[in-house]
């Protein structure tokens, strides 16, 4: 199979099949809720939807989102931007993607989901020749945010306690909007642009991993537990799970800036990696 067809398949798989670790997280969340609570009803509905979408090969969510590709440097000449765009156009034609790309000036739809800057493609260093796709919908992207510390309303200073305050604030603000239970990708530091990029990259980490840095690892655990103690629950209807995971990374900053950037992801965390052998 040629590269275009393989990437189109990757798109279909990513769109219709939720990763195992996310599905396990949803099942764990369901076990924690009382049997006939609204939280349990919502989680069961989500899990039924996951099963059905996988079986029928149709999109899990109608918002097939922004497509971000992370491609190994070694595949630069094989998985070219032109071929990736052809795969996106093919996947759109087959109904695996919604017509979801709008010109920001004219308001006109790019019916094949391809334009200058769409899909988003990053060539990255990696040990194996892989293509990774992340699909993130607009409802969740609207709930991503960036804090600049200190923040007096939150009592947040330039330390990890300040970061903790921002993260809990982001979870409270997303309730009812970003479809919970979600996942937070977080970047401490960097400039504004690398902050968002690094935060989003954290969404690629498996849900059961934790940071190599002991201080960040402790913060990930603590804030995850605290966020789930807020009573927000699935879809903001109340319950014990607002977050399935929380992934923090840190980047160097300049003395004048201290950004905390949060990439909010809904339960439909669609990510998948495929290997392309030379």
């Amino acid at each position, binding site marked *: 199979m040629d590269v275009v067809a393989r990437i189109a398949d990757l798109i279909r798989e990513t769109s219709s099949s939720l990763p195992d670790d996310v599905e396990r997280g949803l099942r764990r969340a369901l076990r924690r809720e009382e049997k006939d609570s*609204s939280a349990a009803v919502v989680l069961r509905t989500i899990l*039924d939807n996951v099963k059905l979408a996988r079986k029928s090969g*149709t999109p899990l969510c*109608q918002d097939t989102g922004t497509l971000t590709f992370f491609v190994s440097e070694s595949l630069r000449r094989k998985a070219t931007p032109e071929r990736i765009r052809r795969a996106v156009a093919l996947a759109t034609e087959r109904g695996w993607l919604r017509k979801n790309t709008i010109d920001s000036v004219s308001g006109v739809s790019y019916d094949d989901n391809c334009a200058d800057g769409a899909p988003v493609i990053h060539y990255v260093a990696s040990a194996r020749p892989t293509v990774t796709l992340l699909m993130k919908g607009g409802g969740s992207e609207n709930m991503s945010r960036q804090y600049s510390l200190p923040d007096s309303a939150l009592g947040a200073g330039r330390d990890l306690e300040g970061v903790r305050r921002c993260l809990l604030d982001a979870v*409270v603000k997303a309730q009812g909007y970003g479809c919970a239970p979600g996942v937070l990708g977080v970047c401490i530091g960097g400039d504004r642009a690398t902050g968002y990029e690094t935060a989003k990259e954290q969404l690629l980490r498996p849900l059961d991993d934790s940071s190599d840095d002991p201080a960040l690892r402790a913060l990930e655990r603590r804030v995850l537990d605290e966020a789930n103690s807020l009573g927000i629950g699935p879809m*903001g209807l*109340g319950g014990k799970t607002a977050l399935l995971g929380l992934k923090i990374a840190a980047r160097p900053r300049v003395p004048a800036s201290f950004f905390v950037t949060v990439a909010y992801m809904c339960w439909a965390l669609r990510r998948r990696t495929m290997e392309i052998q030379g």
Partner: protein
Amino acid sequence: MTVLKYPFDERSVRALKAGNAVSITGRIYTGRDKFHKYVADGGEMPVDFRDGALYHCGPVVVEENGGYRVVAAGPTTSVRENPYEPDFIAKSGVRLIIGKGGMDAATLEAMRRHGCVYVQAVGGAAALCAASVRKVAGVSLLDEFGAAEAVWHFDVVGFKGVVAMDSHGGSLFADVAAASKRRLAALLSLEEYAFNTGHR
């Protein structure tokens, strides 16, 4: 799980409380941004909503063998219809509003006055919502609004949701938001946590 069957009479709708899980069977009509504006501007009701259900949804529908098939039909965010919904409820006699994210205090008050509830469908559950649509019985305003905004006549079986706003002033969103803000203020030792999430 409370089973609701079309037509939805006032007594059964008034018996629902915020937090009840429901399973809906029978006719529901979609309607979103263009539809609400059209009715507010004096447009004629394309269908009879009395004792019926309005679903905030822009489905993906394909034409097939002279009929229609629904591919994806999850809920869209309801807050955009806040300015129109109280009047719509009064004028149309609708009993169920189905959507995502909840609506404002004026809509909650209209629901109390006229006997209507808000049902939260599960965001993102597009495949499942589509599968509960057994038949597309018709469509109104298709040429005028396009497929994503038209008023589709869906016959559904076992469409799942949770009553998030009831006809007695109860709102799950408002309760959960208030409780979570109190808990956060306590966690952060703040006198007051002032952020307004939009659910009043």
